[in-house]
């Protein structure tokens, strides 16, 4: 009993002591005596502290004694590393704008297919000039793509060949393309010749060697990469939830030893054969058996068990680890497959990093933190996956799907640097439809383009400008153009009417035109060619353009209705005469039809609204070869416009309600109508279709099965209730 009590007492005393100690602890932590830890937070000092920059020192610096601020700017020009202001001669670009010269190809000079594609992309672009005197940028005729000495594509004696170029000028204003540099074992980024002050457009470039705003990082692409057009992205629909069968996949070589081998050798640590499938093979090169390690046999067997394509299409994320070089083919493959790339390549300057915000389309990992990668990708929210995935597709189609796009993007970036204040903005590059279709020379204000209304939270202007294309002289007052002028002018949305006088006869006197409430401006076409109807005339101040043929028959109601529809779809062509295209399997070419069909893919510009930006794009984006074809034929300009707009939007145009007699009147007695009746005219249009499709590299037209009608169109309700009555009246 005694012992028991003693224990009890001891126990209680112990408990109370512990309690006391425990309760004291937090209190003592707060005591002012901080002993070992003198400052948990930055103290508040009561002294009057001095400003870091004394009042009298703010701007009165003693540098005015210096000779010239220009000196200061040129200080670094001698350095080996380059910047635009030290290694680039801007004066060459001042006179003729941004023009690119390609050295003529010499006989006997071997040029790889990829480089040939690059050169012909430049030659086919609007930047090309064949006159070196006009050029601002020079591109070599020597294949510099593969500078791996062990490669069969390697070009020898490049050094002397380049030194012999008369215009070389130590590489000033030259652009050198390169995909591979260095070789086993260290894979340096040296090209094996002195690039002087030339700019590098190089794949797998590292941040250390990258000269910011001077070099351009391009993606590594295979020799099978199409020259133009290119495949579309694989994403066909947005599944919800956006998760796929695998979370993360990779399939590729493992290098066992040497540079860049660490990361791939370690991949097996996070491979779980379920949703994280990272496969490597040791089988490559001749003597892989020599370096073979303990894991190789197991890895190789696992490697053969999976199909790469299947994995690519069924994974949410795709690992893009560095190989021997920093970039790998996996990158573009993942991008196209809408498999969000997970970068594992420390120090790789990502492709077009100057303009693309890669964080919106990829996950940037750190090789050092490989083991964290699975938890990182699993933590990505599904909304983010949805947006990352769509962005991969946008970027793929905008900048990567063909050699031409890669080359044009490179040139646009350089042009941006030359134009500076007139350069693309970040949003232009990173939002649909992308920088190749959004030309900042048109306007630096995003609201002037049809693509950014939602992003800016603004609306297009509530007015339109009608442009009537006139090719026949005014003979009688009964000509359709008079009715058209009056009808269009009556529209409450009409700001002004422009008559484009493309007729060989001299301009009629002012009084011949009907009196209208809106101003009518007559512009005499200089060259009187077809393409001039799409010139970006300064007189057009409104966002919307109503393009009209002289013989178009439209009522005011129809104009009003089409315009209200256009306001909902400002990036598309919205109008009346619809046409369709189809693939003719017998002739293996595209066909054109004006028959009534259940779908359409074009809305002709004889009566259609579109954004005035497309005038600019038509004039400045399309190559002169297509425009001159249109001018020579005096035909197809409307088809070309449809190709262009659909290439930009990837969407069909919009047809609005048809008034029934439209077609019959089209076949009236005017000269224009006779043009339509001409069988040659129709055959030409077939030819145009195929010519355009080949230049765009793909058939950009898209079919639609619907038409937009007024809400109560032909409904059995009182006509008085309907806003757009005239459309139903015959």
């Amino acid at each position, binding site marked *: 009993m005694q012992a028991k009590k003693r224990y009890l007492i001891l126990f209680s005393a112990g408990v109370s002591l512990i309690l006391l100690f425990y309760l004291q602890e937090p209190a003592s932590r707060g005591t002012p005596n901080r002993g070992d830890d003198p*400052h948990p937070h930055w103290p508040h000092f009561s002294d009057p*502290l001095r400003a870091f*920059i004394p009042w009298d020192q703010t701007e009165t610096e003693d540098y005015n004694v210096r000779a010239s601020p220009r000196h200061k700017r040129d200080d670094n020009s001698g350095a080996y590393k380059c910047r635009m202001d030290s290694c680039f001669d801007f004066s060459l670009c001042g006179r003729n704008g941004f023009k690119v010269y390609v050295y003529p190809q010499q006989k006997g000079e071997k040029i790889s297919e990829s480089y040939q594609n690059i050169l012909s992309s430049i030659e086919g672009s609007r930047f090309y000039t064949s006159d070196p005197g006009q050029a601002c940028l020079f591109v070599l005729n020597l294949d510099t793509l593969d500078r791996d000495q062990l490669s069969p594509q390697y070009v020898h004696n490049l050094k002397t060949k380049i030194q012999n170029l008369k215009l070389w000028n130590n590489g000033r204003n030259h652009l050198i393309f390169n995909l591979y540099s260095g070789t086993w074992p260290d894979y340096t980024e040296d090209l094996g010749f002195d690039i002087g002050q030339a700019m590098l457009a190089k794949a797998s470039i590292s941040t250390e060697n990258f000269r910011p705003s001077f070099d351009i990082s391009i993606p590594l692409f295979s020799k099978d990469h199409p020259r133009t057009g290119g495949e579309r992205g694989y994403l066909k629909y947005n599944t919800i939830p956006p998760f796929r069968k695998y979370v993360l996949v990779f399939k590729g070589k493992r290098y066992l030893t040497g540079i860049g081998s660490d990361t791939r050798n370690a991949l097996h640590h996070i491979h779980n054969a379920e949703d994280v499938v990272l496969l490597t093979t040791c089988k490559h090169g001749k003597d892989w058996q020599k370096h073979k390690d303990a894991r190789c046999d197991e890895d190789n067997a696992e490697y053969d068990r999976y199909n790469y394509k299947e994995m690519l299409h069924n994974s949410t994320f795709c690992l893009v680890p560095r190989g021997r070089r920093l970039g790998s083919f996996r990158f573009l493959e993942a991008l196209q497959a809408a498999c969000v790339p997970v970068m594992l390549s420390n120090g790789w300057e990502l492709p077009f990093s100057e303009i693309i915000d890669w964080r919106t389309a990829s996950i940037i990992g750190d090789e050092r933190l490989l083991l964290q990668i699975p938890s990182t990708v699993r933590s990505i929210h599904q909304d983010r996956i949805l947006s990352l995935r769509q962005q991969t597709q946008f970027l793929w189609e905008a900048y990567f799907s063909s050699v031409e796009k890669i080359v044009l993007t490179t040139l646009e970036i350089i042009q941006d640097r030359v134009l500076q204040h007139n350069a693309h903005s970040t949003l232009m590059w990173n939002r649909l439809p992308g920088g190749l279709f959004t030309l900042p020379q048109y306007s630096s204000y995003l609201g002037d383009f049809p693509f950014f209304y939602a992003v*800016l939270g603004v609306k297009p202007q509530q007015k339109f400008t009608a442009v009537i294309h006139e090719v026949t002289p005014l003979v009688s007052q009964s000509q359709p153009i008079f009715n058209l002028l009056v009808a269009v002018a009556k529209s409450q949305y009409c700001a002004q009417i422009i008559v484009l006088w493309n007729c060989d006869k001299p301009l009629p006197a002012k009084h011949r035109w009907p009196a209208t409430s809106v101003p009518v401006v007559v512009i005499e076409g200089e060259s009187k060619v077809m393409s001039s109807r799409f010139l970006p005339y300064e007189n057009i101040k409104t966002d919307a353009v109503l393009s009209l043929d002289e013989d178009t028959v439209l009522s005011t109601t129809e104009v009003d209705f089409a315009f209200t529809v256009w306001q909902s779809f400002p990036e598309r062509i919205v109008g009346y005469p619809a046409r369709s295209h189809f693939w003719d399997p017998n002739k293996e070419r595209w066909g054109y039809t004006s028959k009534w069909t259940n779908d359409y893919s074009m809305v002709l510009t004889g009566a259609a609204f579109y954004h005035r930006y497309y005038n600019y794009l038509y004039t400045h984006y399309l190559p002169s070869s297509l425009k001159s074809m249109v001018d020579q034929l005096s035909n197809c300009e409307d088809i070309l416009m449809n190709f262009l707009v659909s290439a930009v939007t990837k969407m069909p145009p919009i047809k609005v309600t048809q008034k029934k007699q439209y077609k019959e009147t089209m076949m009236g007695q005017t000269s224009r109508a006779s043009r339509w009746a001409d069988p040659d005219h129709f055959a030409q249009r077939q030819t145009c279709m195929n010519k355009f499709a080949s230049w765009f590299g793909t058939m950009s037209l898209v079919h639609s099965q619907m038409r937009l009608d007024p809400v109560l169109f032909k409904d059995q309700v009182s006509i008085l209730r309907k806003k757009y009555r005239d459309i139903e009246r015959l």
Partner: protein
Amino acid sequence: MCASVKYGSRGPALIPRMKTKHRIYYITLFSVVLLGLIATGIFQFWPHSIESSAEWSLDRRSVHDAPLVRIPMSSPISERGDLSCRMHTCFDVYRCGYNPKNKIKVYIYPLQRFVDEVGVPISSTGLSREYNDLLSAISDSDFYSDDVSRACLFIPSIDVLNQNSLRIRETAQALAMLPRWDKGTNHLLFNMLPGGPPDYNTALDVPRDRALLAGGGFSTWTYRQGYDVSIPVYSPLSAEVDLPERQPGPRRYFILSSQTAIHREYRVELERLKEENGEALLLLDKCSNLSQGLASVRNRCYKGQVYDYPQILQESSFCVVLRGARLGQATLSDVLQAGCVPVIMADSYILPFSEVLDWKRASVVIPEEKLPEMYTILKSIPHRQVEEMQRQARWFWEAYFSSMKAIGMTTLQIINDRIYPYAARTYEEWNNPPVVKWTSVNSPLFLPLIPPRSPGFTAVVLTYDRIESLFRVITEISKVPSLAKLLVVWNNQNKSPPEESLWPKVAVPLKVLRTKENKLSNRFFPFDEIETEAVLAIDDDIIMLTSDELQFGYEVWREFPDRLVGYPGRLHLWDHEMGKWKYESEWTNEVSMVLTGAAFYHKYFNYLYTYKMPGDIKNWVDAHMNCEDIAMNFLVANITGKAPIKVTPRKKFKCPECTAIDGLSLDQTHMVERSECINKFASVFGTMPLKVVEHRADPVLYKDDFPEKLKSFPNIGSL
């Protein structure tokens, strides 16, 4: 209380058996314990008051109390800054670790006063007011950690903001003496005025090895992209002068130059511009007749006329920011604060926070060489663009320039974004001012896709107990070629669905989902069973829709997968008399909603409705058993900024005799409630997102004089 009661109930059984002596023992023991507890309690409170008085005395701490550290002459000095440093080479990322908050931990060294062997301080200023503000702000932020062993980033308390006040060599020695210096790894230095006469280097000259530099006035030659952070030069006027924000718009002057230390070559060029363009330009210089000091800072002069600085900056559309001896100019901050668009002419200058800020939206950068063309260049900028820039400039100042705190937090956030790039702030978060964030629409389904026809759509039929009607709807829908699956959402908990054998035989899978509660939101649940992206929501009494109409609706949805594509069209109107929104179900010329009694939409919107519906709308709808369709219209319109699409003329859905307003909807109170819904939702969304359009979608050959059998969708009902 509770314990004593317990004790009392047990007490009598235990205590009487003990002897008195022991009882005393116990009593003393418990008194000791009790006293102890009381004492602790008092201590708990007491020290608090002691501490707060200590805090108060802390407030009164002086920099002179900081420990003095003598730097031995032979103390090692760091290497010069390593120009090849990048995050993956010089930064120890293991210190930052993986953490669910994706936030780095920042440690600040305690203040020390460094002096050389003879006792001369290493800096003439010591701790400056600005650096103290900066460190206080970091210390008060979420980034701060007082645990040096867990920190990812270290900030020395050695003030190097202004190189002019530093003794370079001794400062470098002091840095190298820091206990965790380790070649400067993961150390961050803040410097705003780098270099010194005569050549004015563009980065801090203090040898700092691998330390990151947050510097004002970097050039492309000294800036290590992705490693250093370019910061603004803080203008003391930011705190001193309150410039109210002005509405963007035209200003009295077009271009204004206010800097006083402009090189004479540039001043000559500016004056030439002034001659050419007259009143549009205002060229200010320092006032020669005024005394030095504060007055010279707050005044500028032109031909003897005195102007208040920085107020005068608000009177111009564009303000020149030319290179001085250094590239970074405090003027930039003043100009932004005034909402004047800076025209920056400082070749190779790395603009502040250029890693995340889009300066094109707030400034015009012109090469120094093109100074004579400045006027022409600026004139070519569209007016609306200038207004955007004015707004943006002001906002940049407020968010990133206005205080040392703003500058410090932005710097840390940039570094944080590099370490956790997958959780980084987006371009929009960095660059969109609140007003743009509010009005701009970023549709989550932004890619222009026309999904293939083949996966078809899943019809989700909401039903309670109208079996007969339900079966008719199922039979009708099952004729639609693109139907992939039928889901019946059985919302009746009191009654089981009919036996399987009684259901109509359909060619596609049919599944009945029984719900736990009779809620309207059940119909919008993103069921796993919905495997297609297209969902057809349909009520169990919509029997009039033909197979052609439904198939056509699906085709239209494919062209507009980010919209609601449906049959019953409705409109919202502003009731001027009542001053509120009104619901309209009459047949009008306009449409702003399509009801989900029969509508196609993307499954994503199910997910949004269920998990992302703003405010209490979802519960409100479930409680009122009404307006789920209106809520869905609000949701979709708000996130996409687009109007729904009404397909085909169909207006009657339940029976040919019915009017447009059928069943439930006939009820007058029901209509009132739906108007209320619109008002309620508009207030929750804070805006009226619905868009009114005047069109509907019909098949291309609808009502055309064309053989019916050649039409894809001949059977389109007229009403």
